[in-house]
């Protein structure tokens, strides 16, 4: 088949190849790095849009790399959830690219250590492109070992990015982050080995039909899950997340919090609800749900107690990740598509809102030179756009309508009540109230009109620092109104939902 045909699955490699090439070019040329990265981010978005279009037109597709058929060859697969995660990554990625440009330019202009900041920028672009390629690879891979490789690529790139800031605290945090990621990957790999021993297959599609209940496979599932949970930072394995996310440079925090944790979660979720469905017992689901509930409450309480804005936002990530896990026990009654839609909406909403929040935190930090919550008085007057973005993103985190978070929470609540597990509903609602408290604790500071109106005014922020945050926040808000589109993409090729939402082109 002609690889450039409209229906050709070969297009699937473009979201992996494009950032990879861009990363290499950034590293080798070392000139015009931003232009290359921006071009790659835009091209990536276009490629993903094309994949979405393809998916709507032809349904899910598989691409056999190098023409090798499974079980020996590696396949890529594009289906509803994968394409949605790709879209999320591409949109957030574009915003991050623009924001990072503004961030580095501002720092190079305004501070004395210009060379150090130039150095940081030099390494940022290739690493970020590598990370983007890894994430896209993770969402597309259909081979359980290939997934391990993408996990490692992400871990390497993410840890290096986290170490960029050069501050001692961030060095230590990123070293710890690297070790934790390695531990997670190795545990996952051990699980892969166990799985291969029992089934002799790596391809997820074939595996799906070969999974039989047995001690080897159960051990494999347990190991893989533990490894991925560690990477996803589910309480009590979250200890590494707040220091890493809070001490990194602002664009890096956005990447780590908005995208990277979603990658391992996506894989975990796919394993549980597509591959190992037969093995999953109600008690296992309840266990995950309980951890999720603890995460929601614990993360929110910790977020309320923080004195620094970035730490607050980082703990809020811990809390928000809990919602993804509360969807697990609710899958018992409903169709898996229902759970997918919950998880997708929570993940999309969180990715957009959290990126906006970290972007705002970065902008505030550049503006004031600190991010102590009690000294944020009166920022509204000098940074109206970021403050507005903060408010909107906060609304999405709290799950107020019409945000994507609201759709996710609505689905969660509906599932928990229809399956008569009302206690999850209580946790969800308490969680959003706690989110209200930590979001508005900062918000009210922004609104204080300081008595001595002499805020140390640094140079005005570039619009590149302000607008990406606002746009991401607005996307998270209005995603709820456009909720039928993600639903349609999600349902394509999935018979369970096609009756409700007729697939095909809009």
């Amino acid at each position, binding site marked *: 088949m002609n690889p450039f045909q409209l229906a050709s699955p070969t297009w699937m490699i473009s979201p992996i190849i494009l950032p990879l090439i861009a990363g290499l070019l950034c590293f080798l040329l070392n000139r015009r790095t931003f232009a290359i990265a921006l071009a790659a981010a835009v091209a990536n978005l276009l490629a993903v849009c094309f994949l979405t279009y393809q998916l709507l037109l032809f349904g899910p597709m598989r691409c056999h790399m190098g023409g090798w058929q499974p079980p*020996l060859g590696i396949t890529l697969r594009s289906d509803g959830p994968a394409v949605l995660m790709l879209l999320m990554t591409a949109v957030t990625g574009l915003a991050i690219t623009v924001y990072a440009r503004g961030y580095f330019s501002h720092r190079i202009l305004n501070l004395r250590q210009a060379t150090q900041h130039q150095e940081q920028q030099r390494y940022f672009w290739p690493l970020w492109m590598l990370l983007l390629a890894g994430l896209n690879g993770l969402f597309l891979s259909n081979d359980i*070992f290939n997934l391990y*490789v993408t996990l*490692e690529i992400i*871990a*390497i790139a993410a*840890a*290096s990015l986290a*170490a960029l800031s*050069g*501050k*001692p605290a961030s*060095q*230590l945090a*990123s*070293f710890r982050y*690297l*070790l934790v990621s*390695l*531990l997670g990957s*190795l545990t996952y*790999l*051990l699980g*892969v*080995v166990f799985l*291969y*021993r029992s089934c*002799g297959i*790596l391809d997820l599609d074939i595996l799906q039909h070969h999974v039989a209940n047995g001690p080897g496979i159960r051990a494999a599932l347990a190991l893989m899950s533990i490894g991925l949970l560690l990477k996803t930072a589910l309480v009590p394995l979250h200890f590494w997340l707040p220091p890493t996310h809070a001490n990194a440079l602002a664009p890096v925090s956005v990447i780590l919090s908005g995208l990277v944790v979603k990658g391992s979660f996506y894989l975990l979720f796919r394993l549980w609800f597509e591959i190992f469905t037969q093995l999953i017992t109600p008690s296992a689901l309840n266990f995950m749900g309980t951890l999720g509930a603890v995460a929601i409450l614990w993360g929110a309480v910790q977020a309320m107690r923080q004195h620094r804005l970035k730490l607050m936002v980082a703990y809020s990530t811990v809390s928000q990740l809990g919602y993804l896990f509360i969807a697990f026990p609710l899958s018992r009654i409903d169709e898996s598509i229902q759970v997918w839609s919950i998880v997708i909406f929570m993940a999309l909403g969180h990715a957009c809102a959290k990126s906006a929040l970290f972007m705002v935190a970065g902008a505030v930090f550049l503006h004031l*030179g600190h991010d102590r919550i009690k000294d944020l008085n009166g920022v509204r007057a000098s940074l109206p756009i970021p403050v507005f973005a903060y408010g909107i993103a906060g609304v999405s985190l709290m799950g107020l309508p019409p945000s994507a978070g609201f759709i996710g929470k609505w689905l969660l609540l509906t599932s928990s009540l229809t399956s008569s597990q009302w206690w999850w509903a209580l946790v969800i609602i308490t969680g959003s109230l706690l989110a209200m408290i930590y979001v508005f604790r900062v918000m009210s500071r922004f609104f204080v009109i300081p008595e001595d109106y002499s805020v140390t005014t640094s140079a005005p922020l570039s619009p590149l620092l302000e607008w990406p945050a606002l746009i991401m926040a607005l996307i998270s808000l209005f995603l709820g109104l456009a909720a039928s589109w993600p639903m349609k993409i999600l349902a394509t090729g999935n018979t369970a939902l096609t009756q409700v939402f007729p697939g095909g082109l809009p």
Partner: protein
Amino acid sequence: MITTLLYSMTGLLLFAMGLFTLFIHSHPLRKILAVNVMSTGVFLIMVATAYKPMPLGNIDPVPHAMVLTGIVVSVSVTALALLLACRVQETSNLDLLERKKQARIPEESRR
């Protein structure tokens, strides 16, 4: 069969030893070594999986490919970890110097 089991058990043991060391010791270098031992354990199990008893006679090539990939990944990750460990040591020393300097020049304290 026995051979496979033996190698696999050794691999598991290595993994467990590595894990233990990773949690117990605080020195960065020891931690990196621990992770290396763990990955060696996993590779050993993989290689053992590739072995098939006599009547079939073949050797499964897939785990070999996996081990090769794994080793490459492991080497690069170790390099990165070592670099980071060095930076941690350096910056913590630098930080000490910096703090001494700042103690002498108080107006420099604004970062």
